[in-house]
């Protein structure tokens, strides 16, 4: 149960931080329609986050709420992979970050539907519908930017260069994940990786982009060792709850 709690928090943190990052775009997108698309994905992820934190709070059984989980834990207690805390950068960076995430998230949720943990399976089922839109959206944009203008190609290649080192952490199993895999709570990441790699290869081909080879993969986020970005996210994110503790909003 402690393991499921840890894992659920890790998933929640992941959706939350990415949802937060995407929400930073609101009002600043390159075109209204895409501003709305970014907010939509952010909203879906925050929705998923809430279900997960609520479940985590129940598993913990100490009377904490979803907001306590989100607003009252510090940097090293957050367990999201490093990718999702990377800055928005330009639209190309945001698209590539989203594409790498979706290429994991979609296939992960698909497999998680079969978890022996029914609550996680149910959350996965609900989020999978949304994620299937996300992966379609981000894949299409990768293709557009890769096979668009010379500038867009250069920018998306720079984004690949910036973000690829963070694409491997999703599939590196923590001790918690290994234990849960043995107990059948979570799916086999190798299979997910195969689907994910195949999807990436297909989209990159259509985008006339190369999948980077032999890149050193960064990790640590799932164990609380983050990049310096997360601290700044949390100062902003948590400010009100920290400044005015224990109030209703």
């Amino acid at each position: 149960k402690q393991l499921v709690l840890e894992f659920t928090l890790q998933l929640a943190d992941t959706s939350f931080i990415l949802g937060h990052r995407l929400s930073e775009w609101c009002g600043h997108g390159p075109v209204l329609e895409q501003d709305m698309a970014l907010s939509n994905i952010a909203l879906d992820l925050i929705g998923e986050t809430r279900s997960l934190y609520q479940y985590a709070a129940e598993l913990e059984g100490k009377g904490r709420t979803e907001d306590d989980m989100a607003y009252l834990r510090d940097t090293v207690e957050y367990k999201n992979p490093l990718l999702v805390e990377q800055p928005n950068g330009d639209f190309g960076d945001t698209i590539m970050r989203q594409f790498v995430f979706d290429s994991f998230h979609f296939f992960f949720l698909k497999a998680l539907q079969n978890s022996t943990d029914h609550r996680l399976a149910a959350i996965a089922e609900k989020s999978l519908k949304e994620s299937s839109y996300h992966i379609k959206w981000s894949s299409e944009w990768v293709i557009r930017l890769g096979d668009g203008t010379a500038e867009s190609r250069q920018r998306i290649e720079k984004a690949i260069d910036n973000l690829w080192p963070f694409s491997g952490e999703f599939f590196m199993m923590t001790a918690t994940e290994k234990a849960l895999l043995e107990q059948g709570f979570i799916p086999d990441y190798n299979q997910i990786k195969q689907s994910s790699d195949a999807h990436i290869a297909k989209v990159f081909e259509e985008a006339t982009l190369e999948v980077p080879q032999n890149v050193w993969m960064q990790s640590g986020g799932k164990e609380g060792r983050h990049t310096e970005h997360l601290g700044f996210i949390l100062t902003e994110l948590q400010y009100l709850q920290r400044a005015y503790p224990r109030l209703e909003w």
Partner: protein
Amino acid sequence: MQEVEVNLEEQFEAKVAKDIRIEPKDWMPDAYRKTLIRQISQHAHSEIVGMLPEGNWITRAPSLKRKAILLAKVQDEAGHGLYLYSAAETLGASRDQMTADLHSGKAKYSSIFNYPTLSWADIGAIGWLVDGAAIMNQVPLCRTSYGPYARAMVRVCKEESFHQRQGFEIMMTLCNGAPEQKKMAQEAFNRWWWPTLMMFGPKDDESPNTAQSMRWRIKRFTNDELRQRFVDMMVPQAEFLGLTVPDKDLKWNEAKNGYDYGEVDWNEFWNVVKGNGPCNKQRIQTRVKAYEEGAWVREAALAHAEKRAQRESAKAEQAA
């Protein structure tokens, strides 16, 4: 020719008088078209610029629920902007031109968005007061004479009243909360009350376009009428919340069955309209920056769509 025009104009006037909707393909006087384009695009710009002051608190919203609600609200405003730009396009305006006019300062947007959001309570105050005033302005527009505009407004108003309830609920939570929260709410109310009253525009005797707009049934009430209604509606709500209206001249007038209220600071009003508000520069710079930084994305999307179309037509030719 002259006669035909006169005839068309008479028909138009007759339709308007009978509350028959004018549609894009119908004949309409140039001045009517221009007035509508100006008003609708201004309204669209207000939605888009209006995303910024509230968007400013999305990353700092105090709970997951509030964060989601606020994000959805600001996203709705983008949607309203889209409906309205589309409505203006039916009159022959182009979205690029409208955007350029916003960025150059030629087109206006609601001055209220030139005030900053300084605390979380501002998000409540905007929803409650600003959206409240917007609805007061907009509900009559659901019956405005130009069809596409009226239909856009029906959708907008439905969502706005939802937003207003959410704003009121934020205020209520703060007012029923800790003393710091109540203070935050009062402080925000103090800052937003007067600018909100300015949202109804100048006094009737200084609003030269009102008469024509009312004749064309674009507008249905005068600025002062709407402002009075708004005051009469909000004062009891403020009392319910336990907030003090920052107007020492406010008092109930039994004779007119409404509130007398103090004089709006029209100097401030005109000054903000002229571009000297606290955030005019910042708001436009933010929009221009988003637009300019998005140029390469729009170009890429276009280039890709063209490549794709070419490939498909090449394939079709081969097949033939």
